C-alpha cells in the first residue's frame, strides 16, 4: 500500500502531491526533470511500476504535456509536474488541452523567475501565467495549496475537477510548500472522493465528442472504446471536425467559457478567518498565508484584530466573495511573492474607498510574519 491511508506521517509537500496523484487514480505520468518539482517525478517513478501504471521521462516539457493529452485520450488519468521554465514550454499543450477539452493535471512548483531565475527558491510569479500563459481566450482552473496536507487533498481535487469540467487543472504550490515537511494525518480511503473517468453510454452513432449546449461537457470516450472521433486544435464542431461556421465557432467558445463560469459554486474555495469582524484584512495564498496566520496571532497580542482571506482556488478568481466580503473594508493588505499579480484582481473587485495595499518580496525568500505585522501597523 503506497498511500498510508488513515496513518500519521512526516511528509514533504512534493511527496504529498505524488501520493495524492496515486490516491486520485493516476494512470500515466510524463515529465521532464526540473527543480524544485523533481521529487514528484522521482517518487512516481518508484511507485507507479508497482501498480502497473505508466511512467515516462520525455525529452522535454512540450513532449511531456503532449504525451499527457494522448494518454488521457487513450483512457489514462494523466499528470505532470514542472516549474516555471518548464511551465512556459507547456503552455502550447495546455492550450491544446483547453481547446480539445481533455482533462489533465499540471503541477507547477513555483520558483523564482523570470527565465532560469532562482531554481531553488520560492516565488508566486506564475499566477498570471497560469491564467493567461497560453494564447487565445481560454478557461483555466488553478489551485494553490498552503500546506502539505493540502498538497495531498488538492492534487486529488485537481484530478476530480479536470474530469468534471473536461479541462486542464493547474496545481500551484510555491517552492516553500513543495519542499517543506509536516506531520500530516492521511484521511481514510473511504473518506476520499475520487471522480472516475466519464464513459459515454449513448450508441456509437449518436456520440458527440463535445456537448451541444453552450455550458455543459459530455462524457469523453477513450480511443479504442469503439467510439471513433476526431480531435484537433483547430476550431471544431461537436464531432470534433474543423469548422469556420460562425454559429459553431461561437457555440464552442461560449461553452469553453460557460462550462466554468456557470458552475463557479463547485469551483470556488475560499477560507476566511475573522474577516467579518475586521476592518483590516490580509489577502494571502500559498506559503504567504502561513505567515499571515502567524502575523494575525502576533497582532492579536497587540490587541489588533485583522482578518485573513485565502483563496484556495485562484482561477477562476472568487469575484463574488471578494466583493461581498472585502468591498466594505478599510484596508486589504495583499502580500505576494511577486511584484503584484492577484492584487489587481482584488482591486478590480473592490471600490476606491478600500485601500488595497501591496507587500512584495521577490528576493527568493519568504514573507515573514514580522513583515506583515509591520505592514499592517503602518497602514492602520
Amino acid at each position, binding site marked *: 500500500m503506497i498511500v498510508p491511508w488513515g496513518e500519521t506521517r512526516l511528509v514533504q509537500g512534493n511527496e504529498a502531491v505524488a501520493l495524492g496523484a496515486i490516491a486520485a487514480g493516476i494512470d*500515466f505520468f510524463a515529465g521532464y526533470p526540473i527543480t524544485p518539482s523533481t521529487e514528484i517525478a522521482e517518487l512516481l517513478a518508484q511507485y507507479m511500476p508497482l501498480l502497473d501504471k505508466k511512467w515516462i521521462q520525455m525529452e522535454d516539457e512540450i*513532449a511531456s504535456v*503532449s504525451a499527457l493529452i494522448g494518454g488521457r485520450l*487513450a483512457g489514462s488519468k494523466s499528470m505532470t509536474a514542472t516549474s516555471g521554465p518548464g511551465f512556459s514550454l507547456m503552455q502550447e499543450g495546455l492550450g*491544446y488541452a483547453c481547446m480539445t477539452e481533455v482533462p489533465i493535471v499540471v503541477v507547477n512548483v513555483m520558483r523564482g523567475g523570470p527565465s532560469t531565475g532562482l531554481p531553488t527558491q520560492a516565488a508566486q510569479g506564475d499566477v498570471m501565467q497560469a491564467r493567461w500563459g497560453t494564447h487565445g481566450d481560454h478557461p483555466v482552473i488553478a489551485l494553490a495549496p498552503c500546506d502539505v496536507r493540502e498538497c495531498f487533498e488538492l492534487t486529488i481535487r485537481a484530478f476530480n475537477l479536470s474530469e468534471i469540467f473536461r479541462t486542464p487543472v493547474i496545481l500551484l504550490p510555491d517552492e516553500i510548500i513543495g519542499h517543506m515537511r509536516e506531520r500530516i494525518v492521511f484521511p481514510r480511503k473511504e473518506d476520499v472522493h475520487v471522480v472516475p473517468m466519464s464513459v459515454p453510454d449513448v450508441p456509437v452513432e449518436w456520440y458527440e465528442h463535445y456537448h451541444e449546449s453552450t455550458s455543459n461537457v459530455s462524457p469523453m470516450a477513450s480511443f479504442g472504446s469503439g467510439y*471513433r472521433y*476526431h*480531435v484537433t486544435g483547430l476550431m471544431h464542431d461537436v464531432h470534433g471536425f474543423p469548422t469556420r461556421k460562425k454559429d459553431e465557432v461561437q457555440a464552442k467558445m461560449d461553452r469553453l467559457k460557460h462550462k466554468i463560469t456557470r458552475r463557479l459554486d463547485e469551483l470556488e474555495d475560499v477560507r476566511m478567518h475573522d474577516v467579518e469582524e475586521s476592518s483590516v484584512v490580509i489577502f494571502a495564498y500559498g506559503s504567504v498565508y502561513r505567515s499571515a496566520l502567524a502575523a494575525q496571532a502576533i497582532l492579536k497580542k497587540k490587541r489588533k484584530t485583522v482578518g485573513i482571506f485565502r483563496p484556495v482556488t485562484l482561477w477562476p478568481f472568487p469575484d463574488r466573495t471578494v466583493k461581498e466580503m472585502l468591498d466594505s473594508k478599510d484596508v486589504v493588505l495583499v502580500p505576494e511573492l511577486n511584484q503584484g499579480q492577484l492584487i489587481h484582481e482584488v482591486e478590480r473587485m473592490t471600490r476606491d474607498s478600500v485601500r488595497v495595499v501591496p507587500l512584495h518580496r521577490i528576493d527568493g525568500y519568504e514573507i515573514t510574519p514580522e513583515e506583515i505585522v509591520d505592514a499592517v501597523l503602518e497602514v492602520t
Partner: protein
Amino acid sequence: MSATIPYEYKYLRAKKRFPHVWCPGCGIGIVMGSIIRAVDAMGWEKDDIVMVSGIGCTSRMPVYVDFNTLHATHGRGLAFGTGVKMANPDLNVMAVMGDGDSLAIGGNHIIHAARRNIDITAVIVNNNNYGMTGGQFSPTTPPGAKTSTTPYGMIEPGFDVCRLMDGAGASFVARGTVYHVTELDNMILKAFMKKGFSVVEALAPCPTNFGRANRLGGPVEMMKLLKDNTINISQLKTMKPDETKDKIVRGIFVDRDSISYGDRYLALCEKAKKTAEAKK
C-alpha cells in the same frame, strides 16, 4: 457495399469530410491510399487504430480516415502518440507528418521516439518544403533550391531522413516515393508489422509551391522526376557508381529486431514488483 466502390472507401470518412484540402498533383493522397491498403492487409479493426499527426498539409490526413484520429500541435504528433501507446498498448498507433513537422519543429521528438523504440509507425511525407504556409524551406530542401524563404537558393544542407533514423535507433527504416506505389504499400505494410519504432519516408511532389518555385513542371513532370531521379537499393549492385551518384535510393535500409519500449516497460514493472516483494 457495392462492388464498384473501391474498398478504400471503407476506411474514409467519405460523407462528412470531403473534398480534401490538398492541391491538384499533391502526393499526400497517394500516401493515404498506401496507408489504407496496408491497414486493410493487416486486418486491423478501425476502432483499434489511432492516427496522430502534427501540423501541415500531411498532418491534415487524420480528418479523412475513419480511425481514432488526433490532429495535434506542430511537431508533437509522436509525443501525443507516445502517450496514446503508453496508455493503451493494444492500440495500433501511426503518425503521419511532413518533413518540416517531423524534422524541424518535431526533430527532438522523432529522434527520441526512435531511440526509445516506441511501437509506433511514422510515415513522413517529404515534399521538400512547407506547403501549407506557402512554400518555405524545410530541413529537406535540397541545397540551391528556391523556396519563398530562399529566394537566392538554399544554403543549408538537408537531412537524410533514413540515415538520421538509423542512427537514432529505429527498428525499421525505408524510403519510397508516391510514384512507386506498390513498393510504398509494401514498405508501410512491413513497417506496420514491425514491433518497435518504424519509419517510412515517402517522397512526394508539391507542384503548387516547390515545383513552381524551381520550375520543375506540373504534377506529371514532377512524378516523372520521382521515377527518373530515384533507384531501388538493389540497383546499386548492378549499376555503375557514376550512374548512381546523383540518384536518391529507395528501399528498406534498416530492419532489425529489438525490444520495443512498451515491452521493456512491462518487464520493468515485473522487476519493480519482485524487488518490492523481496524487501518485505
